[in-house]
């Protein structure tokens, strides 16, 4: 039934910027006029442990949490977390992982997540304008230009794996 809802799980380890990446995605979807829900856990789990954030958008989203096996996309900021979050990906869902990103081509090591979002953006009905606005809001600091470049590098890549 949740056909009109797009489900994205972003996962990795505490301290890797998972929350910020999911904020950018949620904002971009919001600016595109969708109903958006985003769920995450703070506190103890953020000290280097497994962390994930669910972003769901579409015409109408009910639960803020993505049911098991219903994620359209799994974005992995750390390859060690593949096994942990794999059960969320649905059959035919797309895995976007740090392995897809040629890290030597990135302008800065801290722009990895933005490059992952760049890859993700090629699949989603979210305008470039909305992405740009979201990235400006959340990453408007010193690395802004580097992040913009990383996002474009991500856009030029295609992720490999589907489930």
């Amino acid at each position, binding site marked *: *039934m*949740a056909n009109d809802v797009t489900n994205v799980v972003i996962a990795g*380890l*505490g*301290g890797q910027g998972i929350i910020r990446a999911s904020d950018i995605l*949620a*904002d971009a979807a*919001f*600016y595109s*006029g969708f*109903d*958006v*829900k*985003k*769920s*995450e*856990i*703070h*506190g*103890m*789990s*953020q*000290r*280097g*442990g*497994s962390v994930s954030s669910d972003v769901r958008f579409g015409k109408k*989203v*009910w*639960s*803020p*949490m993505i*049911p*098991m096996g219903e994620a359209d996309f799994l974005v992995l900021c750390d390859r*060690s*977390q593949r*096994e*942990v979050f794999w*059960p969320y990906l649905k059959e035919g869902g797309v895995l976007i992982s740090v392995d897809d990103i040629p890290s030597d081509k990135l302008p800065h090591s801290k722009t990895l997540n933005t490059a992952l979002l760049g890859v993700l953006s090629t699949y989603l009905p979210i305008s470039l*304008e*909305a992405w740009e*606005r979201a990235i400006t809001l959340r990453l408007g600091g010193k690395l802004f230009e580097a992040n913009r470049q990383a996002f474009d590098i991500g856009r030029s890549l295609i992720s490999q794996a589907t489930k």
Partner: protein
Amino acid sequence: MAQPDRLLLFGNEAVAHAARNAGVALGTGYPGTPSTEILETFSDLGGKAQWAPNEKVALEVALGASFCGARTLVTMKHVGVNVAADPLFTAAYTGVEGALVLVSADDPGMHSSQNEQDNRYYAVAAGIPMLEPADAQEAYDFTNSAIEISEKWKIPVMLRMTTRVCHSKSVVRPRWLFPPLDPPRYQRNIRERVMIPAYARPAHRRLRAKLAEIEAYSNACACHREYEGSTELGIVTSGVTFLHVREAAPDASILKLGCTHPVPIERIRKFAAKVKRCVVIEEGEPYLATFLRAAGIAVEPKPDMYRFGELNVDRVRRILAGDTSPEPSLPPGKLPELCKGCPYRPVYDILHRLDCIVAGDIGCYTLGVLPPYEAMDTCVCMGASITVGLGMRHVLPPDQARRVVSVIGDSTFVHTGLPGIAEMVYNPPPTGHVVVVLDNGTTAMTGQQEHPGTGRTLDHKPTNQVKIEEVARALGVSRVHVADPTRDPQAFEKLLVDCLNSNELCFVVARHYCILAAPSIREFERRAKQEFDYQCVPGGVEKDGE
């Protein structure tokens, strides 16, 4: 693109926006996941917000303000309500003048807590109304309703949030409901505010009369929502669980309760009569199911296995299918650990090496219980490290007693550690005791909040500082030391060994900034100094730490 009347907010942010728009004059609380961002956002929006040393203090300060006619907001996590419970029950008797909204942020599934306490029972036990929002829009709307109910019936109101309401973002359309208030003024009303037995007895009767009225209001309240669907299956639910239910059973009839204390029994009775099978789906304890069955309404509770942890769409599907087979288990994630370079690391190294019996407390440093250190033996609640350690010292044979160390953080020490020091001075164990305060200059666990020991207010402006070592001295602890465990671990170890062998009451402040917080702390100090130099006032705030 976004319209200005549409915001994407966390539930916590939505409460803050509503409070700000309603002219709440004072927000108080103690940081605790998942409640922390409410006051921070309220402050960012320009509201007057302050961290209290603990939840009891926060509630009492707000109560005083509300006695004078101000609208107030008090925030805490579920276990914080235990600390605030003493004034809460009496506040239900005294009532309030302006609004008092107490946010309890419950943590089903214990993502960052030591128990999964269901605070709906507090509303029943204390006798206060309770609203349960499901998402950020309702967090916004129900904050308004809570203020309204509180002012209309002059009673504190609990807004019960849960992790997934606090930390889920959804779209909010803000509404401005409240006209500006008159400035606070005190009106003497001794019979209603002084709870000696002669005045408390009628107060209890007044409270019950108010609750009866509020029950009538709740039965008719627009905060409940009914979704008409199949007459085969009806579901009674509340809070975030409704959202899982709506997704898992799009065809069912649903009664979603907004106000769950007083329970709107008649409303539910009518709903249940319309459907063949009526299931109560609620997170945590079988609160509603028990109430409804006691009232003779034929509802089906969830199987007991779903009492544990959070609900989600998958689990709601299983409940509806009556499926009690073991749930699929996810591969375990990576456990959290102390950051690389955390100043607590050398302390735990040493405690582990010395084979200490460690009475621990609540904070980042609770992670010392996990490998590689496994250097924490007990952890009960805020402040318990000192008192539990004392209990152990009292009864253990001397060779073991001398290995007992109480370890507590700086924020926790101010929260409820202080009375433990009074107890230690008053009833010293024969072998003395050793308390180590891990002072990292912040409340690290919840995201670097200030506390009275940092000498900065919620918005990081300088204020008077409670000096931890001086407090210990003033309370009469014989040996008080300040040391940096990271800069010179050997010296720290030697100090600890001396203390353990001394048979005295020893208080060691292990001081070194949290590495994550250090850059911002230095920035706050730089700004404070600038302002200070500009003002050219003699004296000033002495800086300890790194």
